[in-house]
């Protein structure tokens, strides 16, 4: 299993970072205006959006290698939530696309989105 790469500072994220908690609930609405709600999943799932900038070439290469090792969104890995240190054992990259931009020497940028998987 691939390990999520950390930066040279040993941080996994830079500011501004976003964490999203997502539930999956269903609502049945009736003609009289009342509704019945129920939980359609076993629990919430987390999603982290990680924009990274001012990366050096080694950090960009490590992220590209991580993307290749995971085959994009296919592979799963353990991700440590930087907010509370909780290890989420079953996470994936959200998409099959990784865009990196090199604006200068030691000035790379990319965005990773990590999602927690069910099961």
């Amino acid at each position, binding site marked *: 299993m691939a390990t999520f790469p950390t930066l040279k500072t040993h941080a996994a994220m830079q500011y501004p970072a976003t964490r999203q908690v997502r539930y*999956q609930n269903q609502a049945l609405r009736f003609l009289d205006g009342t509704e019945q709600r129920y939980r*359609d*999943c*076993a629990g919430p*799932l987390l999603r982290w959006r990680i924009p990274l900038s001012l990366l*050096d*070439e*080694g950090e*960009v*290469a*490590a992220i*590209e*290698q991580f*993307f*290749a090792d995971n*085959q*994009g*969104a*296919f*592979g799963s890995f353990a991700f440590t939530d930087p907010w509370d240190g909780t290890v989420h054992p079953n996470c*994936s990259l959200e998409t*099959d*696309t*990784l*865009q*990196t*931009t*090199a*604006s*200068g*020497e*030691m*000035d790379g940028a990319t965005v990773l989105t990590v999602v927690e*998987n*069910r*099961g």
Partner: protein
Amino acid sequence: MLVYPQLGTGALSQFPFRTVRRTRTVVNAALDGSSVKVADAAGAMTDWTLGYTALSDAELAALEQFFASAQGTLNGFTFLDPAANLLAWSGTLNQPAWVRDPQLSIAGGVADPAGGSAAWSLTNSGAAPQAISQTLPAPGGYVYCLSAYARATSATAVTMVVGNSQAGRVVQTQWSRIVLAGSGDASAAEIGFGLQVPAGAQVDVFGVQAEPQAGASLYKPSTTGGVYQNARLRDDQLAVTTTGLSRHSCTVNITYVNHL
């Protein structure tokens, strides 16, 4: 095969440039939020967007000549990723991609200058210099830079090889980076990179890197290398803006698809 041209500086691209890597995963999403995924290893694609500014007349002519030879998106060519380490398995010297002379033995797990244990010890037990090398299907006439971190138990002269270019570099007892820029036979379709250890010597090496430019950049570990054969232009048109005397700018889009 047709090859993508280097600039007059020996570089392949200018800043900024963009790389997009795409894979293909088939996802069967269930209502409970779980999913079954299947990877399509052959569906990977890589796109590069290379922006050029202040190109000289000669550099623009080389690009236009290349564009005409490729006939836009029609013909494939060899492209060297300007941001990659061209060598395959740069951190795993016992992979088949590396060719070792018979008297040269290697051992991994040596402490490296980055604080890990990814360096390799090269020991030449023979009576003649022995080399470890890798040959790439890349144009011989390009300017390349070979670099590596090295140290030895006592000062030792190691020979670096880039195509036809060879030069000795003294390796000290502390880690230092040794660098050689050079090129090979202009008509050759492949080029070799290697490190030659003198008879009876032992040298620790880490971070062997080859790049299609005249200077070494930060070390980038690699597994697949950065040589893309049968890459293609993504567009059938090449728009050039001239901003002054011998100052031109344009953008070139290149794509590489595994299954083509």
